[in-house]
C-alpha cells in the first residue's frame, strides 16, 4: 500500500481570517483558565502541597486551546507529563485535576497518579505519560481503535520537541501512514527539552517535516496565536477525519516557566523570555483581538478574569480540603477482577 502526500509539507503563512467573537471569547476563557490554574498550581507547589515534578504549561495555552476547539466528542487526546492544560481543554473538572496534583482522594486518579498520570475515560483523555515519547504509540493505538470500530473520531497525540527524537515516534509514524490511522500528531515546539535547545538536539529543526519520509503531510503553525492555530489546523484535521491518514502539526510555542518547578532555566536569556511574554503572549493576543472586535470592553474582560479566578480558587480549596486517599487504597486498582 502506498500513501501519497495529500498536501505539501509547509509553513503556514496565511493571515488569520475573521473569527467569530463567540468562539474567540470561549477560547480566551479557556486559555485564561489554564494560565490561572497553572499559576495556582505553582503557588501550591511553593507551599509544599504539590510534590515531586510539576510541569507548567504557561505560555503554551493557545496550542491545546486552538486544537481542542476543533475536537468532537468522540475524539481522543493523549499527551506527556505537561498535561494540566490538555485536561482542562478536554473539559475535565479543575477541582479533580488540582486535587490529583495535591495527591488527594478527590483527584482524577484518587491521588494515586499525580501530576503526570491522570486520565478521564469520560472525556477520552488517555493521560498524562511520564515516559518521553511513550504517548506516541499509545495515541496511534487509540486511533487504531477508532478506525477498527469504524468511528469518525480522531486522536490528538501531543509530543514535545525533545520527544520528537525518540525512535518510537517514527515507528508510530510508519504504522499510522501505512494503515492510514486518524491521528493528528501535535509537536509542541517550545524550543527546549529540559535545558537542551532544539538546535542542540535535532539535526533538522524543521520538525513539521519529520513525517515526510512516511508521506505524512506536515505544517508549521504559530502556536502563540489561538486564531491561527484553529484556522490553520482545521483543514489538516478535517483531512485526518476524512480518512486520509495522519498529519504532523508543529506548533511553535514557548514555555515561560522552567521545565518543572525546580528548574531555574539558566539555559536561556531573560531577554528571550521577556520578549516572548511581551510580544507573543497568546492571552494578550486574544485580548487585543477581542477588544478590537468591539464585542467586549475592558470591564467585561475584568469580569471574566474574576470568574476564572473564582473557579481556580475553588479548585485550590477543594484540592486542599479533599482527604488523602484512604489507607485501604494502597493495594486496590492493581488488577481488575477477572
Amino acid at each position, binding site marked *: 500500500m502506498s500513501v501519497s502526500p495529500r498536501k505539501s509539507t509547509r509553513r503556514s503563512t496565511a493571515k488569520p481570517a475573521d473569527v467569530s467573537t463567540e468562539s474567540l471569547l470561549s477560547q480566551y476563557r479557556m486559555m485564561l483558565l489554564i*494560565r*490561572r490554574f497553572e*499559576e*495556582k498550581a*505553582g*503557588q*501550591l*507547589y*511553593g*507551599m*509544599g*502541597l504539590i*510534590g515531586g515534578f510539576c510541569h507548567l504549561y504557561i505560555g503554551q495555552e493557545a496550542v491545546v486551546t486552538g486544537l481542542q476547539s476543533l475536537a468532537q466528542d468522540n475524539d*481522543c487526546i*493523549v499527551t506527556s507529563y505537561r498535561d494540566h492544560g490538555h485536561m482542562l481543554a478536554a473539559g475535565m473538572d479543575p477541582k479533580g485535576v488540582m486535587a490529583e496534583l495535591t495527591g488527594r482522594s478527590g483527584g*482524577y*486518579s*484518587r491521588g*494515586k*497518579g499525580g501530576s503526570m*498520570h491522570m*486520565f478521564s*475515560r469520560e472525556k477520552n483523555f*488517555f*493521560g*498524562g*505519560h511520564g515516559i518521553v515519547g*511513550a504517548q506516541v*504509540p*499509545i495515541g*496511534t*493505538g*487509540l486511533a487504531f*481503535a*477508532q478506525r*477498527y470500530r469504524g468511528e469518525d473520531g480522531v486522536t490528538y497525540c501531543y509530543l514535545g520537541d525533545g520527544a520528537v527524537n525518540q525512535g*518510537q515516534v517514527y*515507528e*508510530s509514524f510508519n*504504522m499510522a501512514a501505512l494503515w492510514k490511522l486518524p491521528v493528528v500528531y501535535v509537536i509542541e515546539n517550545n524550543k527546549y527539552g529540559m535545558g537542551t535547545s532544539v538546535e542542540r538536539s535535532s539535526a533538522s529543526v524543521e520538525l513539521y517535516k519529520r513525517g515526510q519520509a512516511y508521506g505524512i503531510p506536515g505544517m508549521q503553525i504559530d502556536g502563540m496565536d489561538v486564531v491561527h492555530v484553529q484556522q490553520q489546523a482545521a483543514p489538516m484535521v478535517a483531512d485526518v477525519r476524512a480518512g486520509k491518514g495522519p498529519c504532523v502539526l508543529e506548533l511553535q510555542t514557548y514555555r*515561560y516557566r522552567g521545565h518543572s*518547578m*525546580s528548574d531555574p532555566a*539558566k539555559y536561556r536569556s531573560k531577554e528571550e523570555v521577556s520578549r516572548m*511574554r511581551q510580544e507573543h503572549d497568546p492571552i494578550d493576543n486574544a485580548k487585543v483581538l477581542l477588544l478590537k472586535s468591539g464585542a467586549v470592553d475592558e470591564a467585561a474582560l475584568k469580569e471574566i478574569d474574576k470568574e476564572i479566578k473564582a473557579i481556580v480558587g475553588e479548585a485550590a480549596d477543594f484540592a*486542599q*480540603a479533599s*482527604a*488523602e*486517599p484512604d*489507607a485501604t487504597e*494502597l*493495594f*486496590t*486498582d*492493581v*488488577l*481488575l*477482577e*477477572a
Partner: protein
Amino acid sequence: MPISVLLPALSPTMTEGKIARWLVKEGDEVASGTVLAEIETDKATMEVESVDDGTMGKILVEAGGDPIPVNTPIALILAEGEDASALDAAPKAEAPKAEAKPEPEPKPEAKPEPKAEAKPAPRAESVSANVPVGALDSNSPLHITESAFSTDDPVTEPEPAFAKSAPMTVREALRDAMAEEMRRDKDVFLMGEEVAQYNGAYKVSQGLLDEFGAQRVIDTPITEMGFTGLGVGAAMSGLKPIIEFMTFNFSMQAIDHIINSAAKTLYMSGGQLGTPIVFRGPNGAASRVGAQHSQCYASWYAHCPGLKVIAPYSASDAKGLLKAAIRDPNPVIFLENELIYGQSFEVPEDEDYVVPIGKAAIKRRGAHVTLTAFSRMVGVALHAAEELAKEGIEAEVIDLRTIRPLDLPTIVHSVKKTNRLVSIEEGWPYAGIGSEIVSLVCEYAFDWLDAPPLRVTGKDIPLPYAVNLEKMSLPEVADIVAAAKAVVAR
C-alpha cells in the same frame, strides 16, 4: 485583607531560602506573572512570580538576610480597592516553626487569611506499622491466609471432566484458543510480525488470516516498541489485542510499554483505565540459537505488579489458559516454548474449556520431595520423577502453570507433606522464580522443611552456542535427580 506572599519551596528538597533581590518596591503595581523577587534555593537562584493582581503593600523580609523557612510570609499585596491601612490587620513576618517542611503544618494564628494557605489534609492511617514485604503483608494481594493451607489438598478436586477429548499439539491448541476467542468477541484481534500472511513465524496463527481477515489478523512492520505501544493504546480504549512477539527476546525492545504503559495504568488512573491485552510468544531457550535468542523472561515479568504471567506446559493448559488470558481484563504475559509447540497432549473438545489463571496442577503424586516447574521443564521434571521412582523416591511434581499470581497454597500444602522442595526453571538462578518460591516456602512452611530447599536452574551465563556447552547450560533430568536425592538424603 492584604494577600500574603509566602516564601515558596522551589524544589522537592528545599526547606529554606534567601531573598537575593526584590524586583518590585512598595507601591508598585503587580499582576499575575509579575516577577517579584529572586530567591536563592539549595540549588539555584530562582524567580518568584506574583499570582495576584494589586499593589505591593509591604515587603516583610528584606533582601540579603539570613535564610528563612519555606512558607514564611515575605510580602503583602494590597488587592484592588484596598489601601495601606489594611496592612495593619495583616500578619507580621513571623516564621513558621523552625522545622518547616515541604509539607507544612502552619500555625493557625500565622494564617494569612483568606488566600492560599497550606491546609494539611486529614492524614490517613498507615496500613500497619512494620509490615514485612511481600506475601506476609496481610493487605497485599500476594498474601495467603492460613486457612488456605488447611489440611485439605487444594488441588485434590479433579479438574472438571470433559466428555470428549482429542490429541492435539500445543501449536494447534494455541491457534484454536485464539480462533475461538476471536469468534466469540469481535474486539479481540491478533497483531505481530508475520502473524497473518506467513501464518506465524512458528505457524501458531495458521489459518487465522483466512478466517478473520486482515482487519483482525495484522502483520506489523518490525517495530516492537511501536506495535506494543499501539496495542496498549488500543486496549486502553477497550479493544482486546493479542500481541505476538516472534520470540520474547524481542519484547525487551517493548518492555517500557508492557510495564510503564500497560501494567501501571490501572493503578495510576485510580481504577479507571484497564488494559485488557495479551502478550504472547515463545520464551526461553530454543535450540542452538545463541545467547540473544535464548532467554527466559518469567522472573522479569513476574516481578511486576499489574501483570499476570502464565507459562503452560501441556496443550490443554495452553488452550485453556490462553482463552482465560484473552478474557482477562488485565495485561497478561503468556510465555510459550518453541521446543514443545509440536508435542501432542489430550485436549478437551469443548469451547467452554477454560483453565483458571492462578491455579497450579499436580502432575504426579509423591510423598518424598516436591518438584515445582513450569513450561518445558515440567516435562523434564516428570522424567526425573520416573527415574527417582526407580530408586524408591516418590516425587510430587507441581506444574505451576501461572507464575503470577502464584498458587502458593498448592506448593505449601505439598511441602508440608513431603518436607522437601526442589524448584526447577531454565532461567537464570539469581532473583529467579525459584528464589521466590524458596523464600515463600520458608515464610510459610519453615517448620515443615527437613532440608534446605534447592534450585535447579539454567547456568548463570549467556547461553552458549556450541552443542556441548548449550547442553551443559540447561537443566536436565540428571540435574533434577541429583538435587532431589540431595534434599531427600538430609
